[in-house]
């Protein structure tokens, strides 16, 4: 016999306490944060004229500016390549030390991971501002910024890859008495090489995007010219810079995506 009685729902579910609670929390946060940031929808639409004027000026790119920015564009890519390479090289030993299947010392691993977490919290432009103060205006500051930024990003991606490897070959080498370095060289590296290269390319894509604005604070590359054109209110030049950056970023993304698909 089938009962037609509907199962009784607990009080919490019947009155939708959880969803209503979350909605309330979000609404309160929304109101509080719009108060704090002084959001004024009316003001945006009142000044929309200025914004559209800016867009109109940007929609007429000054193409004769293109030859001027070609060299800084190259410099941007060069900065990204060097920065990513330096960062990734330093990331490898740290990734090995942070991987739970290779390093069994919990304290060492914890300290290394905490250090990597701390490095990852710093936004790229903030690093650039500090390194410009140290190294002076120029691409050196940009390369160092990108190196540190990619170090944080790559080391995490790398140790997550290392943790997924098949332990069989490692145990085989260990059982015949190989030392740690031999094990890493013959059992770990062949398993992770392709993914390492793939993540390296992914970080490179990311860094090309990032390096286009680093120059805004004086860290070399196309960003220097971006800042100059914006300061001079020369928006038709800004438009050329943004469009050229877009082409470069899309080209690098395309190449890197293709290579990564071949690798994996």
């Amino acid at each position: 016999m089938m009962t037609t009685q509907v199962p009784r729902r607990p009080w919490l579910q019947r009155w939708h306490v959880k969803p209503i609670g979350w909605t309330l929390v979000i609404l309160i946060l929304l109101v509080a944060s719009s108060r704090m940031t002084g959001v004024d929808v009316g003001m945006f639409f009142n000044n929309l004229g200025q914004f559209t004027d800016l867009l109109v000026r940007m929609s007429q790119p000054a193409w004769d500016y293109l030859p001027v920015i070609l060299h800084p564009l190259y410099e941007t890519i060069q900065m990204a390549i060097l920065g990513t390479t330096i960062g990734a090289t330093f990331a490898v030993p740290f990734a090995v030390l942070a991987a739970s299947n290779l390093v069994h010392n919990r304290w060492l691993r914890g300290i290394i991971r905490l250090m990597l977490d701390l490095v990852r919290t710093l936004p790229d432009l903030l690093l650039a501002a500090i390194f410009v103060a140290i190294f002076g205006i120029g691409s050196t500051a940009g390369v160092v910024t990108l190196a540190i930024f990619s170090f944080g990003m790559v080391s995490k991606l790398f140790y997550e890859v290392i943790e997924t490897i098949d332990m069989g070959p490692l145990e085989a080498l260990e059982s015949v008495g190989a030392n740690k370095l031999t094990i890493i060289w013959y059992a770990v590296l062949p398993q992770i090489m392709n993914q390492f290269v793939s993540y390296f390319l992914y970080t490179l894509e990311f860094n090309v995007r990032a390096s286009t604005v680093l120059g805004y604070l004086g860290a070399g590359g196309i960003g220097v010219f971006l800042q100059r054109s914006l300061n001079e209110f020369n928006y038709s030049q800004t438009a050329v810079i943004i469009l050229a950056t877009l082409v470069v970023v899309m080209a690098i993304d395309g190449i890197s995506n293709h290579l990564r698909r071949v690798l994996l």
Partner: protein
Amino acid sequence: MQTTISKKPATLTLWRRWNWLLWIAIVAVIYTWAITGLHFTGLQESAASVSRSIVHGLVQPDWPYVYNGSGEDLVSLILQTLAIAFLGTIISSLISVPFAFWAARGGKEWLHVRSGSGKVVLTLIRTFPEIVLAIMFIKAVGPGSYAGVLAVSIHSIGMLGKLFSEAIENMDRGADEAITSAGGNSAQIFMLATLPTIMPEFISYTLYRFEIAVRSASILGMVGAGGIGTPMIFAIQTRNWPRVGIILLGIVLMVLLIDTLSEQLRKRLI
């Protein structure tokens, strides 16, 4: 038939045996280009002393700046940064939904005009530098955190729209079909099947994007769009390293806290 089969592997092995040389050559050319192209102006003579004073400032931060009740102290500005990130992410997550449905691919055909055009638009938004957006909005609404909110909300559409559209492409269509077969119209399908199915993923991606927005909100102030970035860039320019130290500490703690919270919430969602 026999000949074609035996012919192909032979050429392949020749290519396979030697293509690493080509790759090494390409990589070598790229690196030579990258290294010779950059002018390393060399270290400034002051680099060592500046680094020393930075370390000194980091070790002895400007503690009184943490809270002094003026509204221009570290705690207030960190809260303002979080407010920028929060509002921007919420606004952006709402605008991203239609973009996601625009860019999501329905069928399996190679070229899809609607989805393709949506994807291009999302890529354009994603590549447009956030600080340029911030500067443009400063022209419209004046310097301050409102411009930051607008910049974060528009820039985040690029990434959220992409993640959302991928979630839609990969979603389980069982619930949709069930409602279709019961005679539901498309509004009912959307409200009762599509939305509940993808909601957890949407919320999880929004939280993830919030983590990124917190980082960008903390640097947008460097161009005048509110938050902690403004006092940071002032402190760096005036070489006030104890102040830089305390702000850095504040940003690191804020980002760590938000990342941990958001990670816990996301783990519970999926």
